[in-house]
């Protein structure tokens, strides 16, 4: 699997062949606070780039999961649905959201570029 890349919507993406694993960044998880509920698309769902495909709800706010590209959901993380606190405890690991089979990815941010974005 490649190094993590990022979007301006505070999602991270790890690419393995034509499958991308997607989650939200530690920065986003921290901003949301205690995540209590995660709503993810079912495997097999078709995605359209830029569309809202899921919701991440905390005690004080609701974040949205955007599809970074067109594609199809291969798997949604049942563990994070069952235990949403994984988003806070391990956002880039066990707290991943969905795996997506994609055809083309947009230009993504590097770790440095994302760090610069959130430093503003």
């Amino acid at each position, binding site marked *: 699997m490649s190094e993590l890349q990022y979007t301006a919507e505070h999602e991270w993406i790890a690419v393995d062949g034509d499958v991308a694993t997607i989650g939200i960044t530690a920065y986003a998880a921290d901003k949301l606070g205690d995540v209590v509920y995660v709503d993810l698309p079912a495997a097999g769902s078709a995605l359209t780039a830029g569309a809202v495909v899921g919701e991440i709800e*905390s*005690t*004080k706010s609701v974040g949205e999961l955007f599809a970074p590209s067109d594609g199809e959901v291969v798997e949604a993380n049942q563990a994070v649905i069952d235990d949403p606190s994984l988003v806070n405890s391990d956002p880039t690991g066990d707290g991943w959201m969905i795996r997506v089979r994609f055809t083309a990815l947009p230009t993504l941010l590097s770790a440095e570029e994302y760090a610069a974005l959130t430093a503003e």
Partner: protein
Amino acid sequence: MSGQGASGLSAGAGRLGEVFADRHIGLDRAAEAHMLEAVGYDSVDALMDAAVPAGIRLQPGETDGTAALPPAASEREALAELRALAGRNTVRRSMIGLGYYGTITPAVIQRNVLENPSWYTAYTPYQPEISQGRLEALINFQTMVADLTGLTTANASMLDEGTAVVEGMLLARRAAKSTSNVFLVDEDVLPQTRALLQHRAEAVGIELRFADLAGAAASGDAAIADVAADVFGVVVQYPGASGRLADPSAVFAAVKAGGGVAVAATDLLALTLISAPGELGADVAVGSSQRFGVPMGFGGPHAGFMAVRAGLERQLPGRLVGVSQDAAGHPAYRLSLQTREQHIRREKATSNICTAQVLLAVMASMYAVYHGPAGLKRIAHRVNRTATRIADALGDAAVHRAFFDTVLVRVPGTAHRVAADARDLDLLLHVVDDDHLQFSVDETTTDEEATTVARLLGAALGTPDVALPVKAALVSIQPPLVRQSDYLTHPVFDTHHSETGMMRYLKHLADKDYALDRGMIPLGSCTMKLNAATEMAAVTWPEFADLHPFAPEADVEGSLELIEQLQSWLATVTGYDRVSLQPNAGSQGELAGLLAIRGYHLSRGDAARMICLIPSSAHGTNAASAVLAGMRVVVVACTETGDVDLDDLRAKIAQHADEIAALMITYPSTHGVYEHEVRAIADAVHEAGGQVYVDGANLNALLGYARFGDFGGDVSHLNLHKTFCIPHGGGGPGVGPVAAKAHLAPFLPGHPLQQRDTIDRGGASVPEHHNIVSAAPYGSPSILPISWSYVRMMGADGLKRATGAAVLAANYLAVRLREAFPVLYSGDNGLVAHECILDLRPLREATGVTVDDVAKRLIDYGFHAPTMSFPVAGTLMVEPTESEDLAELDRFVEAMIAIRAEADAVGAGEWAHDDNPLVNAPHTAESVIVGEWTHPYDRERAVYPVRAVVAGKYWPPVRRIDQAYGDRNLVCACPPIEAFA
């Protein structure tokens, strides 16, 4: 401020009693002078001149119209006038039914809940640690509704049954797999529900299909498949408006098979005897809990309800009480899933409901607690038995043979005559058409009344000597609809059946809560002012409490006159032409106002005008209401100082020129500031052909000084539960009248069953649904005497004095606290309006202490926290209102300054970040007594931080509640007793 005396007897010759305004306003002359000096002004007039921009003040030549208000009455005089109005109502025994039934309010509940300020002056339980009493009552309500409907989770009330059905329809559309745009509606729904569905469905583009569902079910599967084809949901009235009891399960199954959602509109008392909707396949059940001990009140207020099956919890509109745990691991109640609500989700919210009907839900739940399952069943049996005996006596003229309490009777050609004869005997029946009438039996129906009804109908049918059988041969509830399952099995429903026990349970719960009878509740944007005892007096008078909303016009003249007077007074003080009192909350007033705007544009062929401009600082409800009115929200930016960004507004107007339906703006702004540019803003919107909606939530800062209608508003809603003294009831009831200029009058709410149209519409025709927004024609009339009394006793001058005192109090707090906590926004001359936002973000930066810590620590100091993190995260918004006295304001200042010092001690490292009086707040008695004390501050610091709290200390019943735990482990019914061991 005018020159009235601070207290004492009125100077007016011949007047009886004191000047009420002197009692309502907490500041006497000495206090006022002291506070003016602190703020730096010589007089309240000078302060208001400096605070309120000249641009919105009355212009030369404009009259404020308040001369039209009658001069202030004393409390005694106002009560005498109310008595006279009450005397013009005639209370007859209503058997009209249609969702409103006679009921016996247990006296112990009337006295200890409805007439008890510990219950009625509390606020929505946003601070759960000091709201455990009403949260427990509400979880009892939720358990009661879930049990009786046979569903998993119920919310903490809806505004009424009709709007609950609408919410059920909207829920169905969100949750359905079906992509259909059609909602199937039972022909036998209540007439008000039918009109509400028509009005609301049209606005959001839903198509309704009405059908005789019981008839289809009787005709077999093919007929069902035909009507249920391709719909996203269905609502069945169970039992029907005509009384008919039919099994809805086949219809539910057919709709669900097509990916739709099944909704039952039902009756809690019937459900003690008939199969639960959840057992018959319903996904959702809605209805009213009115007949559980809440008087009809000429239409309201009552608690509607909604329950859903497992899996739909997150789709529930309104508030939901859940169980979590506190810092000591003890069970504790709180509002769950708050992020579903519109203050977070804005235009994506599931509903625009905020205020619900907490006080009435508490009453209904206590009715169930007091009677228990066996008692409720006994009441229901008696109701059903009486109805069945009458039907039996009438033979085949009783149209339906299966029913609970309502009997439809065929009386060819004589329905009106029979109803008139019945009225002469003080009984009200419901005329369906020339050939049919129906009656509903309730808890209060006597055998004598039943006999009278049977004889009257018998006479019409040619059998005048019909006798009521002692036992009916007819069995009106038959399998499979005979309820088999248990309900209300939790011990709370089997414990408090003696009056002593009930009284103590209510006291036990009330003692856990912080209401206005303990101290100030300085919640910004909520206006927690005095709810005076005189204002409350008439609520329970039978002439107002026991009227059916569809009683004949001649019987309700007193109430209609009160309504018309209040309408005209509210129009006068806001500068509008017409007022409808129908909306049951601010959210519903917003919706009614926006729907009026929508109707106006459509009537002019302006169908493209569907964009609603909303400033980013607006209350989230604005956006949610706009969506429900079928509009698209475009957000207008605010400047750094919190005002609407005029450049951005102009840009947005230019961009959407011909699509602008309305701008919604709150005045004074949600930032508690009098904006300068509101006239320019209104002009810009008008020039573009849009309408201006002024949200009246903050009217308490304006009354007597400026009027929405004068500075550009076309329509507003008012919150009578804020500015006009209706108590918050722990989260409802509310009344949210909509006030408008004459050109919008044709589109204001009316009702198909109203006694008369109290709104002059200039002869305009109204649609079949009458623009209805609430189930009852005049909303919640039984609490209107509260606002009527307030205006009547304050007079124009008193209302103006109250505004001045409220603004003075807010500015006093701002000045006193500014050093400890920066005031985020202010207007001219550094002044705020009637509330101020304290910025706690710098404190967090400096010390790590959060806004939550400060809010919870205030509990230890004996205060209810101000509004947290609205409209700006990390801040507290403080609104003292005019009713607090100087001593209470100073006590609050002392507490806040002391808390600042504690925070500084944390920042200085004197106390650890994770172990200090703030982060551990609130402290229960148990936490300072039981076990070893290991904290770096002493016990006295924990619970008696200032001497002022020693006397009359309020002890919170739980420690800080874990919000995340409750949302991750959703439990919304009474926990087992063992959980509290």
